[in-house]
């Protein structure tokens, strides 16, 4: 069902955990639907220097969170915002069709975290 990359991220999640000193936090999803993702970002000079996340959900949701965190760490906010659903799926070596929604959820959580950071900065 899952690619080896998905299973790898599921087994060994990268950047997993809460960032106590996060600059921005964003949550997406609803436990009622079975998936909730929370992204934490630490930003310096417009760059995401550290990422953290917490996820309630299936293996795909966990792997997607892990993958996205890896994809954006070290990237500018601009670049991070440009990550697409397809890019995450590709990064993971593909996702089963019924699991594609996980990528939207992850991007939504990330965007909320960025927004949260930007609004706090104002």
């Amino acid at each position, binding site marked *: 069902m899952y690619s080896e990359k998905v299973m790898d991220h599921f087994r060994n999640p990268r950047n997993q955990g809460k960032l106590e000193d996060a600059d921005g936090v964003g949550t997406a999803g609803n*436990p009622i*639907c*079975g*998936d*909730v*993702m*929370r992204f934490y970002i630490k930003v310096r000079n417009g760059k995401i220097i550290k990422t953290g996340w*917490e996820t309630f959900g299936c293996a795909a949701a966990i792997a997607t969170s892990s993958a996205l965190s890896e994809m954006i760490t070290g990237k500018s906010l601009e670049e991070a915002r440009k990550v697409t659903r397809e890019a995450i799926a590709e990064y993971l070596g593909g996702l089963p069709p*019924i699991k594609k929604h996980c990528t939207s959820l992850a991007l939504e959580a990330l965007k909320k975290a960025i927004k949260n950071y930007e609004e706090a900065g104002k």
Partner: protein
Amino acid sequence: MIYLDHAATTPVRKEVLEAVTEAFEIFGNPSSLHAAGTKAREAVEESRETLARALRCSPEEVVFTSGGTEANNLALKGLPERGHVLVSSIEHPSVLEPAGSLEKLGFEVERIPVDRFGLVDPERVAEMIRKDTVLVSVMHANNEIGTVQPVREIGKVCRDSGVLLHVDAVQTFGKIEVDPKRMNADLVSVSSHKIYGPKGVGALFVREGVKLKPLLSGGGQERGLRSGTENVQGIVGFAKAAELAVAEMETESRRLERLRDRLISGLSEIPDSFLNGHPKKRLPNNAHFCFRFIEGESAVLMLSEEGIMVSTASACSSRKLEPSHVLRAIGLRREEAHGSVRYTLGLGNTKEQVEKAIEATERVVEKLREISPFKGKW
């Protein structure tokens, strides 16, 4: 590997494999008149007798099918006359979906509610039966939460009202007594691959005198109720599996109960967890838990990584996103329903395996809770 998913399917046992391998030598078509055909016919009819003994019915009441799904479809879609149909709200999809088809054909279908343990109340069935009710379908035991229904009482209600009763006994056959006559059941579905028999074969008990329309028509096999060249080697294997399961039922079920009870008590110690289904009226081999704040699929996969094979809900709905209709029917909150894990024991399982499964579950639940944004509350 510690296999704890016997409700999904079971490995074919040695004796059955031997019977199947032997039966592959009997290769004639049972409908052929020559000696090779006659041999195949005899193998099928002997198997029918064996299965009939296991079901305490007559051989003429056994219709071989391609499995539990076909047996359930035949029981419902085979109804010759339109009318009102009652199905419990926790039936297997292979009953619920055909019930949906009946609605499109002009039948009226209502769902019988269950209590928080998943039990159907026979009195409620009596109340819901109408003058035009043609069939009640209540499963013997639920494949997810393991609750065993009071089928005899439900059967009595049906008999008293002259309504047919269909019982999906796929999960109980070989584990607890399945006696269509004592149940007052008119139609009973059973499946081979749940009792260490080959996949792709099952049967429907059709009480003498009950009229059904065939679902698969053609050559007229199974006395016209199920056409198609008989799956000889599958039928032989199924009969062997049924014979053994029923013979060993009492001792094996007692053994499984002990393992199950240890599993339940072990898993109950995990914080924020609870057992689903009835604490007593449950399958001897089923333990079904919700672990709050984690999602079942990831738990299943992580347990699989540890060599422990379990399921979320039923195997066939594993790939869906909706939480189980069974867990919703017993009143679970959706977020809790997502966190369910089913352990179903079988022949090969030992006490040591159960201990390992408990330990592994503790670890996995803890790990997933660390990852989860919910800690101790939603």
